[in-house]
């Protein structure tokens, strides 16, 4: 059963005299509990897709359905609670003038989750859930490392107990060792809380190891959709092949695989 459905979704922007069709006619079902990767280069429409799912602007055509019901153009608080976002840059995602605990508690306050007595305990629980010590709640996000900040941003998305999390390049700004830890955390959380991820990224190596299915976007259109294994072993669209062949790799095994794709 699908948790999120996109029905002929499209978005155009008017810039001066001409119209930019950022996203065209995307129909896609996201199953409950899956991690669907949205892959593409700049201008492919992947961020537009995320913003439409989050309801940050209205679609030009089509609709977004969540849990069997069509989402309105103007989302209510309950709608906003049900779909959460983790952004690329954790440094700008958190308010530097608010402590980590206050940022997390704000999410609980806004959505009226718990009572003022239970919220501090819930904040501590959220921090533990993402592998951070409880006493981090008193610290300012500016005193944290990039990896710790991203964990806080993830904890904030969890605070609303939503079932769908939109992850917009969640590890692109992190170093490779920190990225490995955050990816492992995201996979653990998905399993523990039965979350559904819309994982937006340009990093195909990450996709291979975390996604259940992959949707490849190019110039506003979805050009290929398949199980992760299939996308990497038998890509059909020429653009998908080109994308995989361009990934810089480190092992001979990867090179062999990539060369096989670019030749066939």
């Amino acid at each position, binding site marked *: 059963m699908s948790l999120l459905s996109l029905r002929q979704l499209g978005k155009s922007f008017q810039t001066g005299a001409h119209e930019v069709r950022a996203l065209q006619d995307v129909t896609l079902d996201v199953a409950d509990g899956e991690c669907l990767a949205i892959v593409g*280069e*700049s201008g492919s429409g992947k961020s537009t897709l995320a913003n439409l799912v989050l309801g940050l602007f209205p679609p030009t055509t089509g609709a977004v359905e969540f849990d069997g019901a069509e989402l309105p153009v103007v989302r209510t608080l309950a709608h906003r609670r049900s779909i959460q976002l983790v952004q690329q840059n954790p440094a700008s995602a958190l308010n530097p003038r608010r402590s980590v605990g206050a940022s997390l508690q704000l999410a609980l306050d806004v959505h009226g989750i718990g009572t003022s007595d239970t919220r501090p305990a819930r904040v501590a629980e959220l921090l533990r859930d993402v592998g951070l010590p409880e006493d981090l709640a008193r610290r300012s996000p500016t005193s944290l490392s*990039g990896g710790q900040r991203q964990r806080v941003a993830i904890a904030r998305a969890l605070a609303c107990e939503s079932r769908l999390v939109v992850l917009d390049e969640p590890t692109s700004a992190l*170093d*490779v*060792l920190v*990225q*490995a*830890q955050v*990816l*492992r955390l995201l*996979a653990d959380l998905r399993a523990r809380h039965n979350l559904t991820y819309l994982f937006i990224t*340009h*990093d*195909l*190596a*990450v996709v*291979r*190891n*975390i996604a259940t299915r992959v949707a490849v976007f190019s110039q506003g259109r979805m050009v290929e959709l398949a199980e992760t*294994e299939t996308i*990497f072993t038998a890509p059909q669209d020429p653009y998908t092949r*080109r*994308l*995989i*062949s*361009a*990934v*810089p*790799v*480190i*092992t*001979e*095994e*990867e090179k062999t*695989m*990539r060369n096989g794709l670019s030749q066939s």
Partner: protein
Amino acid sequence: MTLVLNIRDLQLAFKSWSGTSEVLHGISLTIGKGERVALVGESGSGKSVTARIVLGLLQELRGVQISGSVEFQGQDLGAMPDRERRALRGTAMSMIFQDPTSSLNPVFKIAPQFQEVLARVTPGISMSATRVRATDLLREVAIAEPERVLDSYPFQLSGGMNQRVMIAMALANRPALLLADEPGTALDVTVQAQTLDLMRALVTDHGTSVLFISHNLGVVREFADRTYVIYRGNIVEEGPTRDVFENPGHPYTRALMAAQPKITGGGLPDLVEGDRHYLEPRFVHEGVA
């Protein structure tokens, strides 16, 4: 073999009101003629400041303590007067930065920016001579319509196009050493792959040596002949790129390789246990430890 760059026991510390912070703890690195050498490390490891010292940008700041030696084509940069060191910049050595769009001046078209670069070697070069030379240089970086590009502002060009303009400018005066700080990181993968191929072909043709600074292991693997791995201001491993990647000797290098997700799959990278081994030497002789 003639060394284009020879860094010996380079130490760097920044002094501030709160005390001294040591950034480089005595690193040594050499680059031969025509060699492509990578310095790979994570944020804060000291890789970019190393490039800035080679360019002579840090020596002129206050509160910077540098010891050790940096020799460029046999000349000690530390012993050189500021004026002579500045004369090397943009002529004998040049640099490509991470974000091409912000490295070019947004209020000038490409042509006058080329004129400024060429005038470093040919003072008072005319605009018509600039255009002739720049057209050739832009053709070298596979730009099909050099005339149109010369009359464009940087924001009218794509990121990949700007990066190629930057490469053309950096190689305009045929430098002996090219410093490339995360080139292509800001670009899409397909554009990044084209840019690196192009850069590799050009430096090979001209016999330019390259110091390639990056945190992207894949890019380093494909571009560099030799690789230095830097961790917290120490070089922990050095060797031919193939050896470093296929047979990493140091715990930190091994952790980096393991943490890099692979397109062949194999699940999420192993969790890294902690960094207490990362500063250990690669070889410890018996009876010492």
